[in-house]
Structures are given as C-alpha cells and as structure tokens.
C-alpha cells in the first residue's frame, strides 16, 4: 500500500489540509481523518479530485452514536456482593423500555458521521469522520453532489440516527416502516422497540400497540482491564483526544 512511499497517507493529509483543520491518525494499517463539519465538503472535494488522493468511490457512509461509549454494566475491578445475575441493573442496550429510556443530558459531540473512501487508482482506503455540532439536531452537509452513490447511505443514517444531511435531494426514511416514530439505532432507543403491530379481526385492520415483551439481555456488558488491553487504553485516550 503506502509503505514504499516517502511519507504516509496520514502525513500527506495533514500537510495538505493543515494540522488545525484535520487530525489524521494511522492504526492497524488504516488511516482515519477526523475533521470539523465546516470543512466537510471542501475536504471531500479535494480527496476526490486531487491526483495524490483520488478517492473515486465512497464505499460506505454511516452514523455512529457515541452515547454510553465505554460504559459497563458489571464491575470487574472491585468485589461485588451480587452473583453473576441475569437481572443486572443497567441501561445498556436492550435493557429498558421506551417509557424508561435514559434521559440524556446534553453530551458533547454524541453523533458522528463516518465515511469510508476507496481509491482504486492508488489501492488505498480512508476513513473520514466528523462529529455533529448540535446533539439535539445533528446536521451534516450532504455528499450527494460529489458522490451520488451516498444518497441511500445518508438516508439510512438519517433514518436510524436522525442525522440531517443538508442539501440531500430526497431525505426520506429508508429502512424503517412507513410512519415510524423515532430513530431506532440511537443508544437511547430500546432494543425491543416501541410499538408492535398485529391484525385486529374486530377492527378489520392492522393496529399498533405498545410492545408487550420485556426487555431481556442475558449477558452483561463488561470491559476487562487485562494487561492484554493496554493497547485498548491507549486507543481510548487517542479517541478522546481526537474528539476534542
């Protein structure tokens, strides 16, 4: 890939866009470019058109909700008085109903849009990420003018995370049901959902009702602090630094 070149892709990206506008990191042979939403379109324009980058394809666009990142439901560093219980208390995914969903206090930079680019010319991949400024109404400029193929991917991110893509020609829901309420992949949306549908023989139509099943996830979410995961620690610090 880029080993035989004098400088790495990360260095070239930093040199081109300036260290204050972007942060390029390289881990496990994958390059990640973190940038600010206001630079979003200009950077992609350059990445697509400039000969040294030439990323012809936007392979994937997705939303990420960083709420509850690094939170666990099971203490692994202390002694606990409870056994390994199925009734772990916690607000991990899948453990709450719609009515008892966690009330989210404003969280700095909760939503991110992650784009994976592929350059067929240079046989190289790049991950580009930006955090939405406002949590209540996450907005990101749309890339549809540069890469028409991201149209559905952005619709999907809007549908599942509620990220609004400014300038998108047709921002409708795509995967969820007609008339669906909420953005199901947000971390404060219950795994069991909100409503269920069935055919009502009396009313002779399909009706919506509140879900009747209980939230139940058997395995608690744990983070083990083994020596093996020292690397993991470093990674988390990096991410925190990049998110700033």
């Amino acid at each position, binding site marked *: 890939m880029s080993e035989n070149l004098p400088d790495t892709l990360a260095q070239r990206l930093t040199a081109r866009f300036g260290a204050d506008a972007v942060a390029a990191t390289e881990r496990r042979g*994958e390059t990640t470019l973190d940038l600010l939403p206001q630079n979003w379109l200009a950077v992609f324009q350059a990445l697509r058109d400039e000969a040294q980058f030439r990323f012809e*394809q936007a*392979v*994937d666009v997705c939303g990420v909700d960083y709420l509850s990142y690094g939170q666990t439901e099971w203490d692994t560093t202390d002694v606990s008085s409870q056994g390994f219980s199925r009734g772990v208390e916690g607000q991990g995914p899948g453990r709450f109903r719609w009515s008892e969903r966690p009330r989210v206090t404003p969280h700095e930079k909760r939503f991110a849009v992650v784009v994976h680019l592929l350059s067929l010319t240079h046989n190289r991949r790049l991950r580009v990420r930006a955090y939405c400024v406002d949590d209540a109404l996450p907005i990101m400029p749309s890339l549809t003018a540069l890469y028409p*193929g991201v149209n*559905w*991917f952005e619709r999907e991110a809007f549908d599942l995370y509620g990220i609004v893509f400014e300038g998108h020609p047709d921002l409708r829901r795509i995967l969820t049901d007609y008339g669906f309420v909420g953005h199901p992949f947000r971390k404060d949306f219950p795994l069991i959902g909100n409503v269920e549908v069935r055919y009502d023989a009396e009313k002779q139509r399909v009706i919506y009702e509140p879900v009747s099943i209980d939230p139940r996830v058997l*395995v608690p979410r744990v983070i*083990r602090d083994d020596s*093996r995961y020292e690397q993991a620690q470093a990674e988390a610090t990096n991410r925190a630094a990049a998110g700033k």
Partner: protein
Amino acid sequence: MQEIRNYTINFGPQHPAAHGVLRLVLEMDGETIMRADPHVGLLHRGTEKLAESKPFNQSIGYMDRLDYVSMMCNEHAYVRAIEKLVGIEAPVRAQYIRTMFDEITRILNHLMWIGSNALDLGAMAVFLYAFREREELMDCYEAVSGARMHATYYRPGGVYRDLPDRMPQYRESRWHKGGDLKRLNEWREGSLLDFLEAFCKDFYGKVDEYETLLTDNRIWKQRTVGIGVVTPEQAHAWGMSGPMLRGSGIAWDLRKKQPYAAYADVDFDIPLGTKGDCYDRYLVRVEEMRQSNRIIEQCVKWLKANPGPVMVQNYKVAPPSREEMKDDMEALIHHFKLFTEGYCVPAGETYSAVEAPKGEFGIYLVSDGANKPFRLKVRAPGFAHLSSMDEIVRGHMLPDVVAMIGTYDVVFGEIDR
C-alpha cells in the same frame, strides 16, 4: 383530445421477479419508465443493533442471514474484523479452508443468480439445472457445519472444526435405490475433499451446459444485450463493486488487489466485461464460476497435502477442545467464560471487506473494549447497487426492469439488514 398522463404502478413487494420483498414504484409513460423509486426495508431486522446487545461470537450466525445466498462470505468479513481488532491470525490451514468455502459460496450464489435471472426472463430449465449443483455444494456446507445454509462455520481465530474424513452418503429410500443410489453415492465414498475433487472435475462441463442454454440463445440475448448499460463513470459514482464493476470493464477485485485469506497463493483470473450491459455481467459471472472452480481445485490439493490446526491456540478467544475441557480446570474456566461472557475486544475501530459474490461486503466495527460490539455497520454491496436503479432504468421499458433487478443480484437480507 384526450389528456395523457403518466401512470404510476406498484411493482412488488409480492412479485415473483422482485427477488424477495422489493417494492418498486414506477412512473410510466406508456411502457417507458420515467422514474423508478425502490422502497426497501421490508425485511429490516435491525441486525446491527441486535449485534450490539450480544457478545461478539453470538452474532456470527446473524451474518449468515444477511445475504442468505452467500453465507460464509459474510461471516468471513465479520470474523476478519474481529481478528484485526484482537490482533490474531487464523492458522494457514484455516485460511485455505476459508478460501475454499468462500469460493464454494461464490458458486452457490452465482448458481442461484443464473437460475433465478433466467427464470425471470423466461427460461425455466436453467433454474432446475442450477439447483442440481447447488444441492451438492450445500451438502458440503452440511458436512462441515451441520447446517445446509446458515453455517456459522467461521470463527474468530479459524474455523469451527476441521474438514470431515467421511462424506455423508444417501441412504436407500423409495426415491433413491439401486443404480440410482449407487450413482448418487459414487463421489461420496471418501472424505469431503475427495467429494469436492470429483465435483470440480465435473463442474466445468456443467458450466458449459448452462452456457449452451443461454449464451447464444436468441431470446436471452434480446433481453440482455444493450440493456441496463452501466458506464465506468457511473459504476464509480454509485459505489459499485464486484461483477457490476467488472462488467463495466474496471479490473478491480479485492481478492487480487487487497488479498486476504489464501488468495495471494492461488492462481485465478478476473473476467471483465466491455460494454457494461446485462449480457456482459452474465458472461462475467459465468466465467467467475469457472475461476472459482479453479481456486477450489487448488485449495483441495493444498489441504490434502497439509494437515494442521484450524484454530488458534489462544483460549481467550477460541474454546479448548471438549477433551481438554473435561480434563483441565483452567480449560474449563476458559470454556465457561468464553461461552457466557465472551471475550473483550480492545478498543478501536476497523473496516474489513471481502470480495463477496455480489461485490464488496464490508464490516465496520467499533469496539470500546467491551465484550460486545459498540457499533457494527454492515456495508452491503446490494444496497449500493440498488440505489442506482433510478438512474440506470430510466428510459428503459418495463420488462427491462426485471432484467435489471436480476442482474443486480439483489438479496434483501443484506439490503434491509
């Protein structure tokens, strides 16, 4: 003078040529498509969110159910993502087994595709022939994993178990007896590898058979030549991959360009189209079946000569053997922890892609150090392909939409996820 208006028709979701649950809203001017608006999501199951609530290994089975005609390729992308984050590598024998089963999967997928696409365009017989060979290959799936389709065979660190020494045989029944039964079991006297060897030798002829039915068939050519032309520029703009990209003459195959598993060590060619129409993509896929067959032959040869472990010896991610587990306390603890809590994956993120039969199937995995994924994104090739529908079919006739859906090779398990 009568007022003439465009007519909107609803194609699917209950339509035999909609390949599952595609609802297509078509705006027609007579027989000509003015606008196509695919409505997807009728099979949305929230796989990505479900995976967030389960330990890593428990989601392997979900991957089979994404693109449910190329099961093991989906698993491959997922286990590779985990392996990358954990920092382990499967033993070389496991790599060869994966390569072999990826190619078996590719043949399975293309057989399904050639059968259903031909059926959509009015050629019934191809479907029957294609399913004959699919049956043999699904027996291989069953022999290694116990399941004909949803195998859950690939695991982080290798594969679930080594290839079986005996290929299951047909037993005598009202339908299979005498000479018929003998013929059915002829290939099944030895191991799975012997069976595959016999299958591969035979399969080139079978592909030729499909070709005699279609390649020079006048009706087939009338329905596919010059239909649904995708230019190389369009292919890039819409993020196409796999046969959709190669049909337009772009030499791009992840197996060659970014080799994984044992693809760097096997010999095969990448077929390319020239015009980018449905007929070219048909030819590309047919040739890919021959090339896959070649890869399987090489893998069989290598696997016969090189026994060895198929799973890493790291009990933090791979379970110990039953025997060991019952003997050794340490192994028992590992086994218990692995199947209850799972293993923690170091924090970080990765994108791993494989060349699935339909194109680039990618997994974007974000881990925060826990025993469950923090975010799992499935990049399905069919999703990107289908989004170009409106642009490609505009100006075509209604029957061409059917040809186009067929050539996209859509499977709603992966598009709706």
